[in-house]
């Protein structure tokens, strides 16, 4: 069973073999969790949203039509994030204000952990679409071609967008650090 591709497994799930989802969960739960954690920077919420992804996979299993599974599951994840974002708009804006405040206080980042915290805070200041591109491309190592599939764009457009997002992040990162 372990040697089957994601797509083969998902087709089996679509035809009713729900237990195969365990394998897909093993393959994707860490990636999904980290995707959400980078997007919302909250471990508890990220776990809940990851759980939601797999609930949706079961719910919409019959709508899966043998396409690239990773692209499909990331599309679900993006939709879940976007509805979560809408739901918590008010709370979130307060949260980010707090974050930027504390970000300004952190002036020196010597150790690696501090550097990463700082990066996370910079990341949260990006727009959702920029942040998700960086998360997918840099942290999740998804190929440009696949990102294009997920966000319904072309490969070249994605390359340019990713680069611009990295540039923006770099500016935010160094600005707040100094």
């Amino acid at each position, binding site marked *: 069973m372990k040697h089957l591709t994601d797509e083969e497994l998902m087709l089996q799930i679509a035809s*009713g073999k*729900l*237990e195969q*989802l*365990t394998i897909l*969960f093993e393959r994707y*739960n*860490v*990636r999904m*969790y*980290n995707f959400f*954690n980078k997007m919302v920077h909250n*471990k508890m919420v*990220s*776990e809940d949203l*990851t*759980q939601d992804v*797999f*609930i949706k996979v*079961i719910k919409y299993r019959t709508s899966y039509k043998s396409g690239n599974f990773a692209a499909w599951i990331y599309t679900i994840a993006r939709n879940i994030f976007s509805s979560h974002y809408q739901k918590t708009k008010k709370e979130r804006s307060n949260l980010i204000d707090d974050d930027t405040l504390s970000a300004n206080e952190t002036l020196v980042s010597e150790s*690696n952990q501090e*550097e*990463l915290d700082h*990066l996370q805070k910079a990341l949260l200041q990006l727009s959702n679409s920029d942040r998700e591109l*960086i998360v997918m491309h*840099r*942290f999740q190592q998804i190929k*440009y071609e696949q990102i294009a599939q997920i966000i319904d764009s072309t490969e070249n457009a994605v*390359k*340019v967008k*990713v*680069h*611009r997002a*990295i*540039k923006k*992040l*770099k500016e935010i*990162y*160094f600005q707040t650090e100094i």
Partner: protein
Amino acid sequence: MKQNDITNKLSLYLEGSLSNGDKIDVENQLKNSETLRKELEELNSFLNILNSEKMETPSANLQLSFDKMLAQEIENQQPKVVQLKPKTDWKQFLRIAASIVIVLSAFLLGKYQSNESKVNNNQNQVLALLENNSASKRIEAVISTEDFSIKDTKILKALINRLFFDKNTNVRLAAAEALSKFSEEKMVRDAFIKSLETDKNPTIQLEVIQILSDIQEKRAIKPMEKMLDNEETPQYVKQQLKLNLSSLL
């Protein structure tokens, strides 16, 4: 190539995902521009920071709640799948067909049985009435046997029984009349002959003589001649005997 275009390609250059032509382009520009080299360096160190990010592992809760959710879904799935399978539709159809068959067969069975029992009831009623204490009831029963078009040995036997043994003359007479309709039965003919030999009542004797001559029963000749010789036989019976014997001979 514009400066902007080049900076956009720097990250791709660092990743090594540029086409050969673009790669040479970027390298040439880098040789010529100090600022571009600085930017490349900056970008490189920043990307290194980005790359130092490690995937975090979610807590065990995620696995637990996933397992729970999946078990629940698999459980929920069972009845749903059964309903959706076309196989079930076929089974459903079979069930409907079976229930129709059951209803229909029950209806037909009931219809047939009620007819049967109706006949049975009638027969039993008549047989019971034939044994009734009241003579008029017995006559009624004897007359009602005329409704039985099919020869029914049970009824015939009962009627013959009446003809031989009923205390009431009128009942015996009615029985004789009723039996005359089944005169083609050997059992009935034998009964008439025996009745002629045994019955002492002139009314019955007259009736039986009439019936026997009507059905042309040759075996009745001997007992008739015997009755003619009998002193006790009333005159008008003898007259009737003579009249009918001539038609039988």
